């Protein structure tokens, strides 16, 4: 147990959430079934809404830990075989989760995020080839260019872009859309020969965001301790024939079949009635993209 009472002596867990209206009927100010093991203090959107209290609710915290997804595989002893199986729920307030399990075999980390897999180009210099592509199988095509600008826009992929009205090729987005929408990957030579010159004599750059077809994609990073292995269960929506799993830059599952070749990955197969891909891995750090 984590002894938050000792670490933060002003805090405890009441038996009843409405204790002030319960009177003496509530005997306990120390209901540690609402407290949980320290390792189960995982982070997610929900955790931030629960603020720092989340880790103190055993039943709720254990559920949040389930959402994050680290378990010991059935039949395993001493955490020699971990089961990393996130529970991905379609809800606007649950788009990521991360957490750590300190097992007797070492520390496991999991960090997953849902959302549209997209590629974003922060700021590419002019007169080079820029490639936009979607992760995974070739069926995961670019469906839209949500932003493109050849000029002197400011901002970034994470913060969003702001066009500079004094230097912006007016047809930037339509040109990139023509080249890329419907393609798994596309290359554009970002120069004034393609976009025209919006501000002669000024050094320009190119920024763009491509949106991909599988918007319910899942990204999961996991660390598996030395001398152990793990089964990573990656849920997906849509047809199993279209799903692909990429680890790093290598496709490990596509066309409903395992694609050998990635270091550390020893197999991949459909599970849960064709709603998830299970990937068998050895120790190491992995970065999966499901699309």
């Amino acid at each position, binding site marked *: 147990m984590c002894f938050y009472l000792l670490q933060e002596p002003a805090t405890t867990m009441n038996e009843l959430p409405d204790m002030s209206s319960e009177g003496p009927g509530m005997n306990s*100010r120390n*209901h540690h079934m609402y407290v949980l093991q320290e390792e189960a203090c995982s982070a997610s959107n929900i955790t931030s809404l629960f603020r720092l209290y989340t880790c103190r609710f055993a039943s709720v915290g254990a559920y949040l830990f389930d959402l994050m997804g680290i378990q010991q595989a059935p039949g395993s002893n001493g955490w020699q075989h971990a089961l990393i199986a996130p529970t991905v729920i379609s809800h606007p*307030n649950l788009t990521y989760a991360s957490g750590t399990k300190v097992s007797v075999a070492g520390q496991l980390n999991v960090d997953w995020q849902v959302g549209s897999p997209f590629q974003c180009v922060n700021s590419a210099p002019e007169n080079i080839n820029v490639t936009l592509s979607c992760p995974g199988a070739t069926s995961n095509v670019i469906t839209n260019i949500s932003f493109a600008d050849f000029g002197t826009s400011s901002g970034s992929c994470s913060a969003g872009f702001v066009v500079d009205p004094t230097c912006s090729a007016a047809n930037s987005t339509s040109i990139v859309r023509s080249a890329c929408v419907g393609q798994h990957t596309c290359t554009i030579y970002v120069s004034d020969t393609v976009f025209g010159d919006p501000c002669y004599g000024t050094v320009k750059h190119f920024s763009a965001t491509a949106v991909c077809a599988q918007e319910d994609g899942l990204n999961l990073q996991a660390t598996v301790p030395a001398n152990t292995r793990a089964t990573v269960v990656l849920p997906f929506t849509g047809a199993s024939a279209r799903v692909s799993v990429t680890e790093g830059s290598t496709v490990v599952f596509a066309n409903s079949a395992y694609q050998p070749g990635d270091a550390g990955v020893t197999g991949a197969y459909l599970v849960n009635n064709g709603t998830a891909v299970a990937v068998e891995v050895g120790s190491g750090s992995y970065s999966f993209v499901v699309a």
Partner: protein
Amino acid sequence: MGGGQGAKPPGSLVSAAAYIHDISMAIDIATALGHSDDVNAWTALRAGYVSGFNAAFFNAASSNYGNSNGDGLQSANAAALALGFVPTGSVAAVANALQNDVANTHENHWFVGIFGMKYLWRALTANGFGDTAIDALLVEGYPGFQFWFNNDLVRLHPMCMYSTQYSMYD
């Protein structure tokens, strides 16, 4: 579970559920140890108790567990689902009844105490109602965790504590 959170499920339901859950854990232990005779004997014992549990507490007409007043409906239905007591053909109906009680009857508020709190989230999520579980975790107003936090009900109160050791729930 106090008066402020509605009536509790019948005490006999909670006790029976806990006992059957104990048998389930004993079966798991015997399985791990390779004691197949114990596994077989306790599996048969458990099946008998589950039948008795359903005969006593399951209302097939309403797909709810508990007494006819519906007391502690969320706790009773959630525990029956999470602990695997619900007859296979009724799982979806009980899950729907649970989801309806949370989402509609109580407008996304959980109405459970220390017993149902353990099972509510997993019972909803395992049966396709994870979004309702997340809604109920985050709902504002009473009863709810936001209420708990916003009213500062997590501070130490200068009252004597009769119970400081509820480890049976861990």
